[in-house]
């Protein structure tokens, strides 16, 4: 950076020698530091995420364990003798101090052991794993649909900005954003299942028959994805518009590129930078949105499992799933941060 001025005039300072010496060492220092700099902010960012995860786990644990009333009572029902309750409490490890219970839970979780539900007596880990085979594809399909709708719609909206068609696209996405996925789901069921009998109403046949499984996921994915597409189209539109108005796009056009070419060569990459954030954050909101949609379509995914656990007061399962979702959201945040740094050369090495 300083080389320019030194070319300009080597005699700027009375003490030019000292400056030049400093500059020499700076080059060496810079190259040394660069190697460290690439890693250091990454580690720092990773550390803040671990701290946030720890905080989240404490929060979940405390909220779910502050209330008086032992799960043992719930399990055994109102008729249970105090003795039986006490026995079960001890058996479940619920008589230990809260801090120990927390450490037990966390310790197991970190080792990948989700524990055993004291309601269904099943391994929570395998239940969650089973649920994820539904929720995972659902979320990914929804994201895909969202992108397939949002990208072209947003691009068209930006390119037609100021025209009637552009405003129409804007209005469409504005309305689309206001539709809750529940509503989208129910209306899709009414039209495509009840009236036209195209798709199965609800339930999930399992992956043993992939074709039927996919068919069962179509409507839920669309319920989530269409709304997502509306949201994304707004971000895409704003991002592309910003590019179209940028000085460097004008420079590109002054070199002889047409608007479309200039946008392809210079705009898309820069437009992608804010969009990566959006995709990351929206992926997180899809995971949460899946909870609702799975209930509309009775899909045996994470959402249904979570809700059943709440209704059965299966607190450990609730704890586990809440932590899983919170972790997913925070990890997505982290990935968004990191991808920023990959895409934008200006941010290399900053925290």
């Amino acid at each position: 950076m300083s080389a320019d001025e030194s070319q300009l005039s080597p005699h700027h300072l009375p003490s030019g020698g000292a400056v030049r010496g400093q500059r020499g060492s700076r080059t060496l220092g810079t190259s040394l530091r660069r190697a460290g700099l690439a890693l250091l902010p990454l580690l720092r960012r990773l550390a803040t995420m671990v701290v946030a995860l720890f905080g989240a786990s404490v929060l979940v644990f405390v909220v779910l364990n502050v209330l008086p009333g032992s799960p043992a009572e719930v399990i055994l029902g109102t008729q249970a003798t105090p003795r039986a309750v006490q026995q079960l409490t001890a058996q479940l490890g619920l008589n230990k101090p809260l801090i120990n219970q927390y450490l037990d839970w966390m310790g197991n979780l970190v080792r990948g052991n989700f524990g055993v539900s004291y309601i269904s007596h099943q391994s929570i880990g395998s239940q969650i794993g089973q649920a994820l085979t539904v929720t995972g594809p659902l979320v990914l399909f929804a994201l895909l649909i969202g992108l397939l709708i949002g990208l072209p719609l947003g691009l068209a909206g930006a390119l037609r900005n100021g025209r009637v068609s552009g405003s129409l696209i804007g209005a469409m996405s504005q309305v689309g954003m206001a539709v809750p996925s529940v509503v989208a789901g129910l209306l899709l069921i009414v039209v495509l299942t009840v009236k036209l009998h195209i798709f199965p109403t609800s339930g999930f046949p399992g992956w043993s028959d992939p074709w039927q499984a996919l068919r069962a996921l179509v409507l839920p994915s669309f319920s989530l994805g269409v709304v997502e597409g509306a949201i994304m189209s707004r971000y895409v539109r704003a991002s592309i518009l910003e590019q179209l108005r940028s000085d460097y796009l004008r420079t590109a056009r002054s070199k002889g590129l047409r608007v479309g070419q200039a946008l392809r060569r210079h705009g898309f990459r820069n437009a992608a930078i804010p969009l990566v954030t959006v995709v990351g954050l929206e992926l997180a909101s899809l995971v949460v949105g899946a909870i609702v949609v799975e209930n509309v379509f009775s899909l045996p995914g994470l959402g249904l499992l979570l809700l059943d656990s709440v209704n059965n007061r299966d607190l450990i399962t609730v704890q586990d799933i809440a932590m899983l979702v919170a972790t997913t959201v925070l990890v997505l945040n982290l990935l968004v941060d990191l991808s920023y740094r990959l895409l934008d050369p200006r941010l290399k090495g900053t925290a």
Partner: protein
Amino acid sequence: MLPSGARPGEIEVDDGFGDVEHHGRWLHNPSVVIGGGIVALVVLSGIVSIFWTPYDPLAVNPSHALAAPSMSHWLGTDEYGRDEFSRLMASSQIALFVGALSVLIATAVGIPAGLLAAAREGAISQVILRLTDILYGFPALLAAVVLAAAFGASKMTVVLAIGIAYIPVFIRVTRSNALVVLNSEYVLAARAYGRRTFAILRRHVVPNIATTIIAQMSLLFSLAILAEAALDFLGLGTVAPTASWGTMLASSQDYLGSDALLTVWPSLAIVACVLGFSLLGDGISELREARRRS
């Protein structure tokens, strides 16, 4: 505005952004007009429903169950013969209550914390930001599930969940906007004539970020209504028989084949209400942008 061609020495108002025209702009922005109109309608129906609805929204009348829209029941009746229109009206109370209270919680915590994080660099700011990191892990729905698991489903768990989930949003929005103001030359000027941090926050920062915050509040109000509907639908919020758009949707599920209108009415109500608040928020931001560019 002065007539054009003002002579030297006279004050020339830049280019017609006189006070009168400035206020007039609100009514020229379609987002504000449409959004504001819808919001006003929802608020009105919420208020009216406290005193009057065509029928008692809870009155069961089995002989009139699942009636089609008619002169006596404008939007028909549900499976218990309750008047749909009355229930929609009564539901707007819940939506507004949950929206208002959750936004209040989010702002009451988020704005002061955001201002503090902006004004006090270093340790305090770091602590606040790390706490928001934690809360970021709990979107409204997840927070509501956890709270419902702990304290049981109710309107208040929904309010609390949505309110808490949006605290970090307000902290970030407040902080980043406040930082822009705090780094401005007019704040530097204020410090140069001896204004302390608190006075600067009150006199410069708050007035300058107010519009942005209000726009954000309107947007979050719309998100709160979305979340509330979803939570009620899941049975984690308002519980039957109290009318809310979410519970109405949930009970309509059983009649998708026969009485799809039972699904359509609350859907329309939710979409319109959410659209109203989000349009209003967008409109306010647009006006702010337009003013900044002028």
